[in-house]
């Protein structure tokens, strides 16, 4: 097994006085899909948002412990969250394209980070990102239409294209299919499977079938604690912990 790209050690997260995560130790491997599963309120989204420090937006949220990406402590004082988020992208539960054209949606990250030096390079990166997100064929002839005019599944793929355009090391996905119909979900799942060749993906999901289908490793959270982590096959077929067994068989949740 190679060195993990993300290494969380003894992570505690508090919302004011309420503790949401208790001493989470988790290693996430590079260029794999890791799914975080568990019942609602178990802290899996909190953990995901701790990785790119989106929790900083909540004034009452505090972090304790160590979270390193590629050996760099994410919570070190010298860390600039802008730089962190440029390299750790995020896809949200509800598709949230900017109320601008499809082209501008994908170009935005490239523009603010000044990642391209010419118009043709920018267009090339936009096309490449949309192709990688499997959206190019559907939108190639209407790049200047608003991103919000697309269907839900297309919007979510646009958000993925927007995220991968800036070529992050890690992509965090917070229940990316929960607002989509089964067909759109299948398309996104296929896409996630392709993207893992180039990106490390951490995905929070409510659907155990989805976790089983797309992820190589699975981490089960319960009541703010990491109960079990292992290869997806092992977690779903032969869990070590009884609580995991109970959850995947539907007895808690």
């Amino acid at each position, binding site marked *: 097994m190679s060195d993990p790209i993300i290494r969380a050690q003894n992570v505690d997260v508090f919302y004011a006085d309420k503790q949401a995560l208790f001493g989470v130790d988790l290693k996430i491997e590079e260029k794999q899909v890791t799914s975080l599963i568990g019942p609602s309120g178990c802290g899996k989204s909190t953990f995901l948002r701790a990785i*790119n420090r*989106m929790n900083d*937006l909540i*004034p009452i949220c505090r972090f304790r412990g160590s979270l390193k990406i590629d050996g760099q402590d994410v919570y070190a004082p010298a860390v600039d969250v*802008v*730089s*962190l*988020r*440029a*390299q750790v*992208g*995020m896809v*949200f539960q*509800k598709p*949230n*394209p*900017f*109320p601008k054209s499809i082209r501008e949606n994908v170009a*935005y*990250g490239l523009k*603010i*980070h000044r990642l391209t030096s010419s118009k043709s390079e920018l267009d090339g990166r936009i096309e490449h990102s949309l192709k990688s997100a499997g959206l190019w064929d559907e939108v190639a002839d209407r790049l200047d239409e*608003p991103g*919000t005019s697309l269907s839900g599944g297309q919007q979510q793929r646009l*958000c993925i294209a*927007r*995220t991968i355009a*800036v070529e992050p090391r890690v992509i965090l996905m917070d229940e990316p299919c929960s607002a989509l119909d089964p067909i759109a979900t299948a398309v996104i799942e296929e896409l996630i499977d392709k993207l893992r060749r180039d990106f490390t993906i951490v995905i929070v999901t409510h659907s155990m079938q989805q976790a089983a289908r797309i992820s190589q490793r699975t981490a089960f959270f319960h009541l703010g604690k990491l109960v079990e982590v292992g290869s997806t096959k092992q977690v779903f077929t032969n869990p070590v912990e009884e609580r995991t067994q109970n959850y995947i068989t539907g007895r808690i949740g």
Partner: protein
Amino acid sequence: MIDFTKSAGFNLAARHRAETRFQWMGKGAILLALAFLAWLIVTIAVGGYGATKLVQIAIPVDLSATNIDPNNIAAARFGKIVKLGLRTRFPEVKKRKDKKKLYNLLSTEASFELKRAILADPKLLGGTRKIWFTASDTLSLYVRGKTNVSVPEDQRRISDKEIAWAADMQKNAEIRTVFNWGFFTHGDSREPEIAGILAALIGTALSLAVCFLLSFPLGIAAATYLEQFAPANRLSDIIEVNINNLAAVPSIVFGLLGLSIFLGYFGLPRSSPLVGGMVLSLMTLPTIIIASRASLKSVPPSIKEAALALGATPVQAVFHHVFPVALPGMLTGAIIGMARALGDTAPLLMIGMVAFIVDIPKSILAPATALPVQIFLWSDSPERGFMEKTSAAIVVLLIFLIAMNLIAILLRRKLEQRF
């Protein structure tokens, strides 16, 4: 058999009656409100209609060299020439008292009208010409049938003699009624037949321009900071409560503030649109801030989150994504605030914009008055003619208000983005 009709019980008859009763009460309330509105508009429009009419009388004036030196037109005594013309028209009038009455047929503006006519067309010189002059307010009201002639002579402003002269002139087609362009091109005047709203209109426009330039940038900057960047603590709460309170403060208080600070402390020019606009912007700022905050708040936070997750700085996230979506709402709020400022009189009285202004203000530092103040001034004047002017000025003010609200709606439609 199962019964799905009204007679199935469930107290249905009473419930439906209550339903109908409530709906009729709602419709009645709306009808009543509409009726009052229609009544108001019709009364004002009917009252103001007269102000668009100008009565003129034709008088033969002798413009030969004996009266006017063609090389020195300005030195001529135009008032005397006009009076002479009147006396030639009615040679039978001999008594001093009657002559005075005769002169009363004409507006005091007549001599200036003659001067302007000659300066505009010097070819008139060198003979006797028939020229149309503005009639006096008294004659004008009589000609337009606004005078009750059935009351005894000493109880009306127009005497029997004047009525006889007017009848004589009417017989000879020497009296006509034209559209009163002067109402839109003149400043205020002591004479109702001359008074116009242009000076007040310009004063209002200048004040509102100053008000918009000051309050819009300030208002949206404050709203954006408070809504998007300010930490949520006690201080922010206090500021929010106070802004809400300021929006409810009577406008005359802002006038007093302007009087003591802008005029008293900074010594800015009294009665000027600059100070007027500053005082009005004090008044509109809270409105703009509240409307802009509501507009910013209505932008889904997911858009800002998306930008932040992509590595945008908070300022970039707000200005690239939240701001454009919120702008139409902020603009609408500003225009509605301005519409309120347009109709406000009290703060302007405090800073001296209540002056009698004949000249059209040429800059934001020149003394000026404003439309609502002009309405207030005219409504206070005893002359009958000013009653019409008051109504007409109110119509103009209402048209302005409607136009501003219309602009707000159109801008919102045009700028609104879907998300």
